[in-house]
């Protein structure tokens, strides 16, 4: 009887996790293996000799040793992350602190503030594209009219294009930070803050000595999460500048995309994606370590 029910239990277990395993094999494991195989082959559709041949680690060698575009795109991505994440954090925290008390219409305000994050990134890109279009853009019109920007050059100036993309990302993702920080602040017991007030601390000191330490695990989580997300930024840049002018805004996701689906160098593209996946894995492991060990104990 016991053996029977144990077998029964095992069968039930496989019944439960079977579909998931099948799903993972189909959409994750198989493609990964295929990508690994492809990355070892010459698969450029623009080459006619040797196409499909196994060339060992040649793709990786070229990528890591000889491709300046790869490293500059990584550099651009890193810069992007370093610029947007702290900005989004600081602004998100500021807004969260501002709305961290009851007032009429608070829910409405929070919902309204959340809108940019809720819109699909491609739509965000399209929205800003129309706003900033050289000839018809609504924003371009006012920027020109009030002389803030001389002419319709937003996406043709290297630094400006980069700055605008960063600003759009900040616009889009600050609400996410705000939501997490607001949740953290709301979850905070009021007494330590009151104690700090009685101890003579002003708002800045309360923030620094009480609120920020309390929020630390959340801050780590939110910033890491955003850093990983921002390093994968694609949609809005693809829609707005396509990586241009030149390759000034070609972040690494865009580089991978172009290699695969513009240059049709599929083997090389697979190698790029796998190298990126490897980097992500390292970052994710670090992330996990920090999050699981970084939480301060509560009193």
């Amino acid at each position, binding site marked *: 009887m016991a053996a029977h029910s144990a077998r029964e239990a095992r069968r039930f277990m496989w019944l439960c996790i079977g579909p998931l395993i099948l799903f993972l094999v189909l959409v994750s494991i198989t493609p990964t293996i295929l990508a690994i195989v492809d990355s070892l082959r010459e698969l450029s559709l623009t080459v006619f000799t040797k196409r499909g041949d196994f060339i060992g680690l040649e793709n990786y060698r070229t990528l890591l040793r000889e491709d300046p575009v790869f490293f500059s795109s990584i550099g651009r991505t890193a810069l992007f992350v370093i610029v947007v994440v702290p900005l989004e954090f600081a602004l998100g925290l500021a807004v969260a602190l501002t709305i961290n008390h009851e007032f009429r219409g608070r829910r409405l305000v929070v919902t309204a503030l959340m809108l940019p994050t809720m819109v699909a990134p491609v739509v965000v890109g399209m929205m800003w594209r129309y706003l900033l279009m050289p000839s018809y853009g609504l924003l371009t019109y006012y920027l020109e009219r009030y002389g803030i920007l001389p002419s319709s050059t937003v996406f043709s100036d290297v630094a400006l294009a980069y700055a605008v993309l960063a600003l759009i990302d900040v616009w889009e993702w600050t609400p996410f930070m705000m939501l997490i920080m607001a949740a953290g602040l709301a979850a905070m017991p009021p007494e330590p803050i009151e104690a700090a007030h009685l101890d003579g601390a002003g708002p800045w000191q309360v923030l620094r*000595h009480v609120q920020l330490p309390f929020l630390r695990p959340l801050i780590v989580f939110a910033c890491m999460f955003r850093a990983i997300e921002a390093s994968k930024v694609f949609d809005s840049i693809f829609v707005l500048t396509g990586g241009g002018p030149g390759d000034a805004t070609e972040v690494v996701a865009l580089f991978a995309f172009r290699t695969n689906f513009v240059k049709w160098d599929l083997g090389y593209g697979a190698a790029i994606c796998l190298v990126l996946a490897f980097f992500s894995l390292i970052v994710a492991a670090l992330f996990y370590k920090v999050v699981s060990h970084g939480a301060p104990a509560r009193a």
Partner: protein
Amino acid sequence: MIDVSKSFDGTPVVDHVSLDIADGEFVVLVGPSGCGKTTTLRMIAGLEDVSAGRIHIGARDVTDLHPKDRNVAMVFQSYALYPHKTVAENMGFALRIAKRPKAEIAARVGEAARILGLSDYLERRPAALSGGQRQRVAVGRAIVRDPEVFLFDEPLSNLDAKLRTTMRSELIKLHHSLKATMVYVTHDQIEAMTMGDRIVVMDGGRVQQIGTPLDVYDNPINLFVASFIGSPAMNVFTVAIEAIGDGVRALIGDQALDLPADHPAALARRAVLGIRPEFLTFDPAPGDARLTATIDAIEHLGAETLVDFSVGDARGVAKTGRNERLVRGSQTRLGVAPARILAFDPESGARLRGRS
């Protein structure tokens, strides 16, 4: 505090409270939950605005001052320690904010830690401390400040019973050695009785009575105070009064309690009689008012015995010394000196004072 009121969204929580606390006094605000005692304390701290009235500390009117400018320190029920700071950093935080020299901070923290027996824990985080130690740190944080007023908001409620008793006497000792003004909020009438120089009994946002613990115990101003202070609680019997010969007779169910004509209840037609459990005796003396009661339960506490009894529909508790002769279910004579029977108005609950 002068005529201080507080309401939340139009609901009065603290209703015209006036309180004069002497320098160096230990005053306990006591009452059931929701009576406004904590709100009163928080208004003294400046954590709540007053809706009306003024608050003075010493010669200063602090009503409109920010908490940090009031020179008060508060110990919270939940300790409210800064979890990421060490014990020493917690205790020295106020001085650090005030930009005192490091040496002075270390000296004052060290001194407070010595008083509280925390010297070995200064480098620990609150999470590594027991509840009693955490509360000691919270007290230490207040001591280090050397404030004009110490405020305690149910500081012992989160501790277990034994620790509570220990901490209680430690706080009393601390008060004697610091000679500081302390305002202490509790719902525990035993804490109030044992700790306070004076106690303030509150109910429904109003001060019911202010006095020394024994004064409040012996001379409760109304039925609420009488029943709230004392453990086991005072026995109360609603009675009809009728005159007989040279006295009056109070009817408790089918029983009659004979009282002298000068008893405060004598002028009423109905009254609530209050008798403390310890004033009931099982061998009545001459002149005692007497009742025949049925013993419902006997609790032997060792040194003393609690006896649950009933008189008709009315129930009560008598407290006596060790007594092994009592039998559950039996009838017994209970006596009480008439002077020990307090009388209250059944409608208002106010104490009846008689002719005097």
